[in-house]
């Protein structure tokens, strides 16, 4: 019984939050890694792209809510999501046309691209703050729990409850669908194949008649969609605040690099590695250990390895270790 309780507590506090946070990071890291693979620079504006997409979706969600539209037990934001994606795609294509294309034609060094992305980051950050303000926004509605702690206790008769929020379930399900579609697209369609070809060997791809501008355009569209979905899911699960999205850059970069920059499978694995390390290292293990260990060995303290405020330090430490011992990432990435 105690062991079961320990398992439930572990699932409730570590596995479920880790899975949903990991899916959010994986979606973010996929965007970063695609940009790196095709356009060959680290996009510092990615966090703010996520914020922009989430903002458009939030504004539309409010519009739908006031019009009385709803998705039943699911959050209304799901209805607004496609439009949010379209808005972000428009912004991305506009940015590419006005900003990045010039440097592509110049064949500028990657570090110049990074600097340009800093400028884009500033503008997007300013735009988001200008339109929706710097404060916290909550836009979650619909059913709050798939299964609440109390129902679970009643159902199983255990002391420990297991609560799964709708947003958490939704995050994981959406992430699985999105990733499946993305891999189908990259591996089976003509455009996807040309993207991979371009990423593997630019010269050879150009030689075989692939239009680079088209590849770049599709990349931005996919990245915009991924960023918006990641941003909205994160906002639904936690809350929307422009500055938090900016701070997500570090774990997202860490995920992409740990998995191997430029490698989509690596980005997903990296997302979950970073998320689970953050959660397990900053979680206070007292409860699980008290259930799991015999009475005499039960811990006195909280058994928390690091306080929650140091979660950045965790992703950073993993990042450094991977950079030192395996600079190309766990799954072969492009970067050396």
């Amino acid at each position, binding site marked *: 019984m105690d062991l079961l309780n320990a398992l439930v507590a572990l699932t409730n506090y570590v596995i479920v939050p880790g899975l949903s946070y990991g899916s959010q990071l994986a979606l973010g890291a996929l965007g970063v890694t695609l940009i790196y693979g095709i356009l060959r620079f680290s996009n510092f504006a990615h966090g703010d792209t996520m914020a922009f997409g989430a903002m458009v979706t939030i504004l539309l969600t409010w519009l739908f809510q006031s019009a009385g539209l709803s998705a039943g037990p699911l959050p209304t934001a799901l209805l607004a999501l496609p439009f949010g994606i379209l808005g972000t795609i428009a912004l991305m294509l506009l940015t590419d046309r006005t900003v990045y294309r010039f440097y592509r034609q110049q064949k500028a060094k990657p570090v110049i691209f990074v600097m340009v992305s800093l400028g884009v980051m500033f503008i997007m950050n300013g735009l988001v703050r200008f339109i929706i303000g710097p404060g916290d926004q909550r836009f979650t509605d619909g059913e709050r729990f798939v299964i609440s702690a109390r129902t679970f206790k009643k159902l199983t008769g255990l002391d420990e409850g297991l609560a799964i929020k709708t947003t958490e379930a939704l995050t994981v399900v959406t992430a699985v669908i999105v990733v499946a579609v993305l891999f189908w697209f990259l591996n089976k369609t003509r455009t996807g194949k040309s993207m991979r070809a371009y990423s593997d060997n630019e010269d050879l791809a150009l030689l075989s008649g692939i239009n680079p501008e088209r590849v770049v355009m599709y990349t931005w569209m996919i990245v915009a969609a991924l960023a918006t979905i990641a941003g909205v899911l994160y906002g639904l699960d936690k809350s929307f605040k422009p500055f938090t999205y900016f701070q997500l850059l570090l774990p997202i970069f860490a995920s992409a690099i740990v998995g191997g920059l430029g490698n989509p499978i690596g980005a997903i694995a990296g997302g979950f590695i970073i998320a689970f390390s953050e959660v397990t290292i900053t979680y206070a293990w007292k409860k699980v250990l008290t259930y799991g260990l015999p009475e005499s060995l039960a811990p006195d303290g909280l058994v928390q390895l690091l306080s929650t405020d140091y979660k950045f330090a965790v992703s950073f430490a993993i*990042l450094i270790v991977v950079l030192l011992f395996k600079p190309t990432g766990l799954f072969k990435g492009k970067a050396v």
Partner: protein
Amino acid sequence: MTETMKHTLLFVFVGVMILLEGMTDFLFFSGSWNSALVILNMGLISAIMAIGVNIQWGFAGLFNVGIMGFTALGGLAVVLVSTPVIPAAWSSGGVSIVMALVMGALTVVSAVMITKFMPAGKLRMLVLSAVMIVGFIVYRAIFDPAVGSVEAINPALQGNIGGLGLPVLLAWPAGGLLAAGAAWLIGKTALGLRSDYLAIATLGIAEIIIAVLKNEDWLSRGVKNVVGLPRPLPYEVDLQADPTFVERAASWGMDPVTASTVYVKAGYALMFTVVLLALLWMAQMALKSPWGRMMRAIRDNETAAEAMGKDVTRRHLQIFVLGSAICGIAGAMMTTLDSQMTPGTYNPLRFTFLIWVMVIVGGSGNNFGAVLGGMLIWFFWIKVEPMGILLMELVTAGMAEGSALKAHLLESASHMRLFTMGLILLLVLRFSPRGLIPEK
């Protein structure tokens, strides 16, 4: 018009802007000498930070986005050097904290040694993890109770290990040293990898430094802030109580309150100018020396420089440490100016990326450019807000009174800052990538 003329005029332009700020309240100027001096002081500090970044980026092509961390370390130095000694903290737990930190450092060093000297394999992994786990447990066992007892001492005012009680001016070089030490650690690990990785590593370390400052209450009281740090200049209240000063103020035709605030701020401006000129001179000498030429050669072609027998990674480490030390000095000066340490106010957009805008706009690779960029961009950073409000008033003038859009536009005008800075950065990068004062 010669190049030199043009560049001098640019500096004159910034000077005139600051003078106008003091003299007139036309448009976005405020017409207060206090406000002009506040802008000037932070402008001088920004210029010093820009020199630090310019040394790294302009001389050596290193992309450091962790400036905020080094600035904050400078601020920490002020607390650790200048606040009074708290004997109770040292007798109760301070020594154990230091011991715990030494233990932690020893653990890391031995881990590095093990990976270096033991052959790879299962045994190494086993020994390594054993050392790390034991080290961590011992560290926490010494550290936690010590921190508890230090934080229990007079928590309303102190609750930290206090400082050394030395003159606050000593904190400036100390801030530089602290930042240099951190930079050495980061450089040792992240330099030699590709340029994007250094950027991401520095971004991370800056966040971690801020997290430590916010959470380790025993060090600098965390988010409870340290206020009332010692100042190198007299307090305004003391000046107002001093009859000779009041007399002098009257002879300048100013009331004693304004005179005292202006006097103190002008004093700071003088001190900062001295530091800025000294650092500028040194940076200029370094740039012109064989060392500076070597740096630029490495920046332009690493392979060729390596072929000439230059140790690229070592030189990169050297310049990374030097540039970060300058940022540390500037950070210490800033905390001295504010006479308080508030970890919650460090924001990467303001303390890292804005400095980058300064360097790029001023002209990367040129020290005078960095100084100009620092002063000019700081002026605009402050003034974009009133400018934005003016603009919005103009835009919304035709709208109906009390409409929601009008209210929203007026309210959001202050967020124009980031947008404008991004726009300036993109425009300069596109149309004048070498900046206002290009590298020679």
